[in-house]
């Protein structure tokens, strides 16, 4: 085993890794010290790698290597070290039945002495290292060219908390955590069917991040699952720190501002999406889970839509679509009407607007740009600032920028109303990446309507529509089921049909037969046998 210095390993990590992988693919040897040394060298003597020498009951030397912080020390003590060293083990060794005494010692160790839930054997250095830094305890036994990887993992983790970004009034409160196993468990708990498949993948040459692909066999289309696999396999990057990295590399159209990958931190949303035939991608270390294929309409759906009564949900969806239009077009429409199409405003309104604009030094377009940018800065500040600055920022934001700007005659009150209403409207879009995308597109539309009026605005809308219709997400048209229109699937788009009426899963996403619901339509029935109770 070649001995290398720490710096050498660091450089080899950042370079094309050939030297490193070459040496790491070495097999373990029978000599205990050599194995331990190899580990020590490979980790560069990192201080969180802990080595514990043991002398086993039959006199054989052994070393347990763990990554401090990733293992449960109590479990390690109880199920590994105690089992290997305590006296009663020695006694029981003597009392063993003959056939067990005849077993090779390593086999005996694995099967009968180590009391942890999962024990694996590795013969190669890289596998061993991998297990070590994933939080497994590594046991080297002298004279044995294998390492035992014992599962006593205990990640630093937080408990399951209510979702902060996607809140509902009615519906489950739990959200994903940074731990991928907790996350898969949250989904498993909702879908108790063996056909829920969770495939493990890895991405990131340095971070070696765990990924999981979740889908339901028999609902999700094979072609789409294969596509997801192949796109994930294509990823060759050193680090995956958040699912956003994956999203950027597997999305369909890199130039579009529209997201073609859906993301959520709610397990109930993931369960619902899987049941429609979509595929979820979990990334270890982040609570944000990706869902593909993503359809345009699903960005405007909140999980609560499905928990509320269908009529209420449909009404709220209509409100939301008004909000969407206002987010995108509010300021542009105002600019177009007030600078190009004054004849379209009611007379009383235009007199009022003119009187408000008396003495405003900027054209409406500049005024709108100014206020929109101010609002976006305020909003960003609100997200980014430490919590104790909150009151200051909201005071400055609302009072100084709002009221004082109007009183000083720099912006007109009407413009402030438009900007404020646009700001509020942008918050009704349940999914942040879509709302960001629309906020971004608002600016070019404002420029268009500031130069060409409603004509420019309409041209912008037409271009946007064309673009949206050309998008695909994992082969599925982005605007479906609206364009191409599928009548059976349209019941869950701008409105939502009641659950008893939604008989089929989305055509574009799921395999046939796709009937999901055979419940008859409920109707009032008389009490079956009213006299029975009186007996």
């Amino acid at each position: 085993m070649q001995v290398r210095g720490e710096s050498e390993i660091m450089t080899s990590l950042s370079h094309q890794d050939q030297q490193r992988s070459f040496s790491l693919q070495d097999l373990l040897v029978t000599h205990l010290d050599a194995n331990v040394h190899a580990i020590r060298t490979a980790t560069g003597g990192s201080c969180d790698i802990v080595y514990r020498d043991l002398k086993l009951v039959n006199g054989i030397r052994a070393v347990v290597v763990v990554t401090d912080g990733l293992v449960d020390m109590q479990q390690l003590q109880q199920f590994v070290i105690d089992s290997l060293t305590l006296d009663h083990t020695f006694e029981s060794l003597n009392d063993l039945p003959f056939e067990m005494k005849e077993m090779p010692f390593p086999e005996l160790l694995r099967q009968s002495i180590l009391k942890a839930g999962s024990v694996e054997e590795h013969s190669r250095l890289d596998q061993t290292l991998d297990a070590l830094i994933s939080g497994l305890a590594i046991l080297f036994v002298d004279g044995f060219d294998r390492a035992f990887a014992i599962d006593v993992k205990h990640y630093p983790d937080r408990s399951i908390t209510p979702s902060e970004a996607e809140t509902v009034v009615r519906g489950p409160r739990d959200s994903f955590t940074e731990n991928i196993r907790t996350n898969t468990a949250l989904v498993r708990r909702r879908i108790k069917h063996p056909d829920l498949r969770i495939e493990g993948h890895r991405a990131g040459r340095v971070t070696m991040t765990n990924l999981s692909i979740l889908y339901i066999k028999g609902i999700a289309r094979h072609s789409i699952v294969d596509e997801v696999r192949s796109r994930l396999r294509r990823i060759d990057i050193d680090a995956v720190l958040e699912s956003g990295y994956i999203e950027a590399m597997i999305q369909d159209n890199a130039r579009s501002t529209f997201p073609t990958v859906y993301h959520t931190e709610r397990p109930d949303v993931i369960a619902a999406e899987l049941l429609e035939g979509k595929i979820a991608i979990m990334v270890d270390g982040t609570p944000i889970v990706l869902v593909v294929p993503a359809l345009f309409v699903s960005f405007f759906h909140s999980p609560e839509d499905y928990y509320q009564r269908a009529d209420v949900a449909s009404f709220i969806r209509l409100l939301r679509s008004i909000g969407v239009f206002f987010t995108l077009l509010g300021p542009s429409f105002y600019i177009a009407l007030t600078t190009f199409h004054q004849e379209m405003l009611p007379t009383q309104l235009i007199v009022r607007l003119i009187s408000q604009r008396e003495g405003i030094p900027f054209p409406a377009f500049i005024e709108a740009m100014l206020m929109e940018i101010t609002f976006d800065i305020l909003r960003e500040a609100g997200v980014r600032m430490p919590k104790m600055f909150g009151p200051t920022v909201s005071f400055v934001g609302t009072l100084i920028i709002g009221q004082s700007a109007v009183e000083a005659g720099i912006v007109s009150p009407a413009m402030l109303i438009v900007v404020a209403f646009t700001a509020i409207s942008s918050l009704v879009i349940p999914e942040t990446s879509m709302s960001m995308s629309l906020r971004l597109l608002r600016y070019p539309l404002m420029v268009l309507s500031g130069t060409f009026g409603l004509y420019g605005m309409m041209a912008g809308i037409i271009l946007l529509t064309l673009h949206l219709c050309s998008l695909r997400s994992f082969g599925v048209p982005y605007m479906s089921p609206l364009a191409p229109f599928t009548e059976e699937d349209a019941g869950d788009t701008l409105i939502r049909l009641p659950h008893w009426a939604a008989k089929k899963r989305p055509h574009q996403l799921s395999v046939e037969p796709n009937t999901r619901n055979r419940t008859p339509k409920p109707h009032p029935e008389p009490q079956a046998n009213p006299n029975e109770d009186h007996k």
Partner: protein
Amino acid sequence: MFRLIKMALALSLLIPLVGCWGRLELSDMAITMGLGIDLADGDKYIVSIQVVDAGEASAQKGSLGRSPVVLYSAKGKTIAEAMQRMTTSSPRTIFNSHLRVLIIGEKLARHGISEVLDFISRDRQFRTDFPVVIAKNDKAGNALKILTPIESIPAIQLMRALEYSEKHWAPTIAIHFDELIQGLIAKGRQPVVTGVVMIGSSEEGSRRSNLQTTSPKNRLRFTGLSVFHRDRLIGWLTEEESRGFNIAMGKAYKGTGNVECSDGNEVSLEVQESKSKLKSKLKGDNLVLGLDLKIEANVEEVACKLPMTKDETISDLEKRTEDTLKEIINKTLNRVQHDLKADIFGFGDEVHRKYPKYWKKLSNDWDTHFAELPPVELNIKVKIRLLGTVTNVLESEGSE
């Protein structure tokens, strides 16, 4: 790269499609609310526009004491020229799309208004939904000067008052610009236009002090209709005659009229529904004109001491109403047919529709023919529906 160029080319096609590029900031506009056109000496036009001083008209924190509107006037050989000349006194671009009322001076109306109508319908800014009125015995510019209470912008006040009285006062009717144009083009019908008269003086009416009393002395009031022949004003109908015209045309919805009942007292009726139909019949070579009118009315006020619950009273009342209406309408018809010789009802159109071949012979001088025709046959049906919340007159009920 090629794709990008193609896209840029495709997008650049959008630019030549743009129509008029009229970018105008709100704070650079002067909104015309009222337009008045008069004839000056030497075939010149005097155009007056009533422009809103928006800061004053919708002042929220107390007004500065300025007038809510400003009147600009300019002379010109054509109206367009006068409008252009206006820019020498107006600090802002004059914007005509929100015009609320067009006033034409009587002198100009008698001279002919086709040029005015041509200018307004040719200009892209003007809509066609504003009412047109004639300043009776006066100049349009004077009528636009008067400040009004309640609605601070006089043009809006004028339009509102006209629309309101059209609904509730049978003699007035609002003629909008497009209707006037249609009347002018139609060969079988002559246009009518509402008249407005000034009460008091326009000089005093233009001051704010005019509004400081509960009953402003200087104001505008609508009066009877003016009758046009082609584009020229040829005469005025009295209020009574205007009422007859409106009733005959079925436009008397919500209008009130009085009828004398058998004991000599009056009953007021409010029209709830009225349908009128013009008739024409060719008997040999003789044209006979007719008018069917069906009216449903409610009792508004009763002064006569008759049992209103009895069928006979009601049918007697209906009969009397029919007679009264017949008298009113006949008076109007007589005036229009024989005195003014202008078919403002549109009998000509009716003949045109029914006897297109026969019409060809008449169409060139229909109005002369119209004057020579026998009187129009009236066929009026009145139905009284509701008596209101009480039945008999209170006095007689108490005595029972």
